[in-house]
C-alpha cells in the first residue's frame, strides 16, 4: 500500500498552478491536505504522473470579511475553522460543523477546498456549505468564475471544475443575526462519514430558507424554498413533503428514507424554525 511514483510540483502562485493543470491535461492532480487523496494514492486507486501541491500559494490561505460574506481561501484547514481562526464576526455554523468532521488529526491537515473538490457526498462541507448558500470562487488559466456550491458539486466525486481550473476560495454569505441554523448528521460512530445529513438555514430577513439532505449517493438534495416543507400550521416539518423530496432524489429504500428523515427532523428541530 505505497503509492506509485509521481512527480511533486510545489506551485508558488495561482497562475503557476493553473498553468500546470492546463498543460498536463489531466495527468496532474491537485493536492492540499491529502486526507482523501493520500489514501487513494497509497491504494493506487489514482496514479497521477504529477502532483501539484498548492499549500504554498499565499492567496489560498487568505480570508476576507465584508458585510455580506465571509470568504475563505481553499487551503484553510478544517482545524482553523473549528478553532475560530476566522476574521470578523463569527459565523457560528462553521466551527460547529468543523468540530465534528472526522478526527482532529484529519482536521489539522484537511482543507475546506479540498473537501469540496473531492466531492464525497458524505462530506460535511458539501452539505453545510450548500445549505449556507455558499459560492465557489474558481481561478482558471484564462478566466475566473463563480459557481454556487450546488452547481460546483455535480455528483458523487464529481465537480464542475474544467481543465486548468482551481478552486480558489469559498464565499459564504453572512446570515442575518436572527437567522436560524440546524445541522445534524447520523454516523455509526464518532468521526465516521455520515450515512444521513440534514441541514437547515432559515434566514427570512435575507429571503433565504434552505434545506439540504446530504450523504446521498449523488450531490445533496436541496430545497431552495423550504417553506414548502412546513406543515400546514407553519411550524413543524412536513414529513410527507420531505419524503417526496427524497423520492424525487431517487432514494427509494424505506429504511434509508427513514434515516434521512430522522437527520432532517433533527436539523429542523435544532434550527427551531417557525
Amino acid at each position, binding site marked *: *500500500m*505505497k*503509492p*506509485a*511514483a509521481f512527480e511533486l510540483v510545489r506551485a508558488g502562485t495561482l497562475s503557476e498552478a493553473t498553468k500546470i493543470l492546463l498543460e498536463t491535461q489531466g495527468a496532474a492532480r491537485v493536492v492540499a491536505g491529502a486526507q482523501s487523496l493520500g*489514501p487513494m494514492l497509497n*491504494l*493506487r486507486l489514482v496514479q497521477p504522473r504529477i502532483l501539484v501541491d498548492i499549500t504554498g500559494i499565499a492567496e489560498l490561505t487568505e480570508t476576507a470579511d465584508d458585510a455580506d460574506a465571509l470568504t475563505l481561501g481553499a487551503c484553510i484547514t478544517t482545524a482553523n475553522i473549528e478553532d475560530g481562526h476566522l476574521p470578523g464576526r463569527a459565523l457560528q455554523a462553521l466551527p460547529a460543523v468543523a468540530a465534528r468532521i472526522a478526527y482532529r488529526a484529519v482536521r489539522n491537515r484537511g482543507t475546506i477546498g479540498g473537501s469540496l473538490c473531492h466531492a464525497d457526498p458524505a462530506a460535511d462541507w458539501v452539505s453545510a456549505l450548500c445549505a449556507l448558500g455558499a459560492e465557489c470562487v474558481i481561478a482558471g488559466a484564462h478566466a475566473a468564475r463563480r459557481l454556487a456550491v450546488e452547481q460546483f458539486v455535480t455528483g458523487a466525486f464529481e465537480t464542475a471544475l474544467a481543465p486548468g481550473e482551481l478552486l480558489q476560495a469559498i464565499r459564504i454569505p453572512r446570515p442575518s443575526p436572527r437567522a436560524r441554523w440546524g445541522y445534524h448528521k*447520523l454516523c*455509526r*460512530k*464518532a*468521526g*465516521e*462519514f455520515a*450515512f*444521513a445529513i440534514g441541514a437547515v438555514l432559515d434566514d427570512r430577513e435575507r429571503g433565504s430558507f434552505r434545506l439540504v439532505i446530504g450523504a446521498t449517493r449523488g450531490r445533496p438534495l436541496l430545497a431552495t424554498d423550504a417553506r414548502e416543507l412546513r406543515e400546514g400550521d407553519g411550524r413543524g416539518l412536513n414529513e410527507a413533503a420531505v419524503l417526496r423530496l427524497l423520492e424525487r432524489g431517487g432514494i427509494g429504500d*424505506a*429504511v*434509508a428514507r*427513514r*434515516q434521512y*428523515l*430522522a*437527520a432532517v*427532523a433533527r436539523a429542523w428541530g435544532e434550527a427551531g424554525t417557525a
Partner: protein
Amino acid sequence: MTTHGIGAAVLRKEDERFLHGRGQYVADFRLAGMQEVAFVRSPVAHARLRAVHVPDRFRDVVFTAKDLVGVKPIVSSPPLKGFKHSSQPILATGKVRYVGELVAMCLAPSRAQAEDIAGEISLDFEELPAVTDMLAALAPGAPLVHEEWGDNVFVEFSEGGAIDEIAKSAAIKVTREIRTSRHCMFPMEGRGIVAYRDARLGHLTLITSTQFPHCVQTGLCECLGLEDAAVRVISPDVGGGFGYKGLLCREEVALGWLALRLRHPVRWLEDCREHLSANANCREHHYNITGYAARDGKLLAIDCVGYVDAGAYSDYPISSAPEAAQIANLLPGPYDFPAYRCRSAAVATNKCPIIPYRGVARSGICLAIEVVMDAIARATGREPYEVRLRNLVGPERMPFDNVVGKHFDSGDHPECLRRAVAAIRLSEIRARQQHPEPDGRLIGVGLSFFVEQGAHGTSVLASWGRPIVPGYEQANVRLTVDGDIEIRVGTHSHGQGHETTFAQVANEILGVEFDRIKVLQGDTLYTPYSTATWGSRSMVMGGGAVARASRMLAARAARIGAWLLQADAADARVSGGRVEAGNGSVTLREVARAWYLQPQNLPPDVDTGGLEVTAGYRAERDSGTFSYAAHAAVVALDPRSGLVEILDYVVVEDGGVLVNPMIVDGQVCGGTAQGIGTCLYEAMPFDAQGQPLASTLMDYMLPGATEVPDIRVLHMQTPSPYTEFGIKGLGEGGAVGPPAAIVSAVNDALRALRAEVHDLPLTPERILAAIEAAREQTGNG
C-alpha cells in the same frame, strides 16, 4: 502475600518501554541490505490459474509456485474422523480459492518498488462460480471449493442425544435463527516478517509477529523440509494478536524460502488492506436453535444446528475444526438442563480461512443460548435474569459436570448474576422505562452469562483434534551471579503483561525484589518449547510452571544457604530473597556467589543441577479452569435512526485468584471493547462473486474511544481447586459476553414495538428493518 506477589496490582514492567515509544516490533528491525517483498494476490475468489506472466526484466525478482520446488503446502489435518484435509499452497498453483490468496512474490529495495513490480504481473485464469455463503455451500450442486471432497464440509460434530420425549411435553418452545458476521481481528500491529540466514548459528532466522514462535518453527520445518535445529524464530514485542497471530502464515514460509536463497535479509509487512481482505477472518456462524422450557422458566432441552463459515483452507496448527467443535460442546454454557442435541459443521467457502479470535466460538454460542433465555423469559412473562437464575448451577453443586460433561471447577454463578443485576440497577431502569424519554429514544437493559473454559489441557485439546496438542508447559528459572532471577518461558505475551505477572509469581515464592526479576520470551533459541499463548492458558500453565521451577530453585538454594549458615538443611527456607535458617540468613546473592564464583564453599552434596531449573507443569485436572462472568448493559435506541448508544455497562467476573487485578481489568475492558465491535460495528461483507467489500478502515468499522463506555468491572475470586494459587484463565471472556448482553438490551428496548433482532452486527439498517417488519406485521395482523 508479598508487596509484588500474587494479587498485587503492580504497574507493568513492559510499559516503561511501550509508553516511551521504545517497544521493538518487527518493523523496527532494519537490517543491512534488507529488501522488501510485496505479494501478488488473487483478484478473484475462485478460478483455475492457467499462467502467471512475469515480464522478462523481472525474472530474477519475482517468484511463483514454479520456483518453490520442494516446498510443501500447509496441511492442517486434525486426527478427527471424517475430517477432509485441505492443501494450502504457499503460492497458488492449480486453483485459487479466495480473493487475496498468494500468487507471486516480488522483491525490491523498497515496498513501493516491489508493488510497482507486482503491478506488472498478469494472471491468466479461468473464473469459476464462487460459493460465498455457508448455507448455499451446503446445497446440492453448489460449486466445490475442493472438488475431491465431493461436498463443502470440512468436518461435522454431534453432541447429546434424544430430546424428543422432553420436547413433546414441554410447555414452552422458542426457536430463533441467528447469524453472526464474519469479521477481522485487527490487532494494532499487523503481521510482519524479517527473514535472514544466520551463518554463525547455522539458522534460518525469522523475526515474525506471532503468538507462538515454536509452532511457527515446527510448521516452517514441515513446509521447508528443515530440522528444527536449523530454524530460529524470534517474536519480539507483539502489538496484539487475538488469535490472528496464532497460525503459520504462508508469508512466513515464502519469506523463509526466499531468505535461504539469498544473501541478504528480506522483509514483508502486512498492510491494512491485506489484513482486512486477504489473510484470515473470524466469527462467522449461523445457528438454528430451539429451546424447550417449563412454564416456570426451567430449561428442559436445547436443540441446535450450527454452522461455521470456515473459508477455503484449514490453517496450521489450529485447523478449521475447533470452532465447530466448540459450538457442539460449549453451547450449553452455564445452564443445567437435562436434554441436549447439537449438530455443527465447519463449511468451506471461497473466502479466506476463519481462525479463532479471542473467545473463539464462544461469543456466538453465548449469543445463541442467551437469545433463547430471553425468548423463554418473554414467553413465560418473567424477568430475563429470573429465567437465568432458575437454570444456573448453585455453589453447593460445585464442582459440577454439565449435560455434555464439561467440568465446572468452582464458583457461585447465581451470586455473580445477582451482583450484576444489582450493579446495573435493574429496578431503576424498569421504572425509567415506564415514562417516555424526552429525546424519543427507547431504553433497554440486557444481560448475558457465560462460563469461560480456559487453559484447556491435553485431554481436551486431543479430543478437539489439534495437530499440536499442548502438554506440560515448561519454565526455566535461573538465579544469576548477582542474585537476580531470569525466567525463560515459551509462552509469548502479545499484550497480556507476562513480563510483569510471571515476575509476580517468582516474587511470591522467592521474594527476590520485583525489579530484579526479568522474564525472557519470544525466541526459540533460549525458551522451552511451548504451544505458547492462546486459549486463556498462559497464566495458569506458564505461571504454574514458573511457580514449580521457582520452588525447585528455592530448595536448591536453601541447601547451599544452610551450608553457608552452618545450619541444618531441613530447617532452611527461602523467604524475602534470603535463605533463612534458625536465627541466621544469607541472601540469594550470596548463595549465587558461592555457586558461581566460590564453589569451594558449596556443600559436598550440592545439587549439581545448579541454580537453574527447568520444570514442567500441568494442572492437577486438565479439563480446564472455568471462569465465569455476567455482563449487563443499558442502551438507548433511537427508533428513527436505528442508532444504539450504550449508556452503562457492568461486568461481574470470577477469574479465580487474580495475579494482577489491574491487568485483569485491562483485559476485561479490552475484550469488552472488542465484543462491542462484534455486536454493533464489525463486519466483512462479501459480494456474490466473493469480493471482500471492506478493504479499508473507511468501510470496516471498529469501535473507538467514544463508542466504548466506562466499563464497570466487579470481581469475585473463587480459587480453582486444581491449579497453582487457584488461578483461572480469563483473557478471552471480555469479548464473549457483550454481543449477547447488548442484543438482549436492544431487544428489551424494542419490546414495545414488538420487534426483535439477532443478526450481527446490529446496524441501524437492521434495527430499522426489524421495526419496519414488526410494524407491517402488526398492521396486517
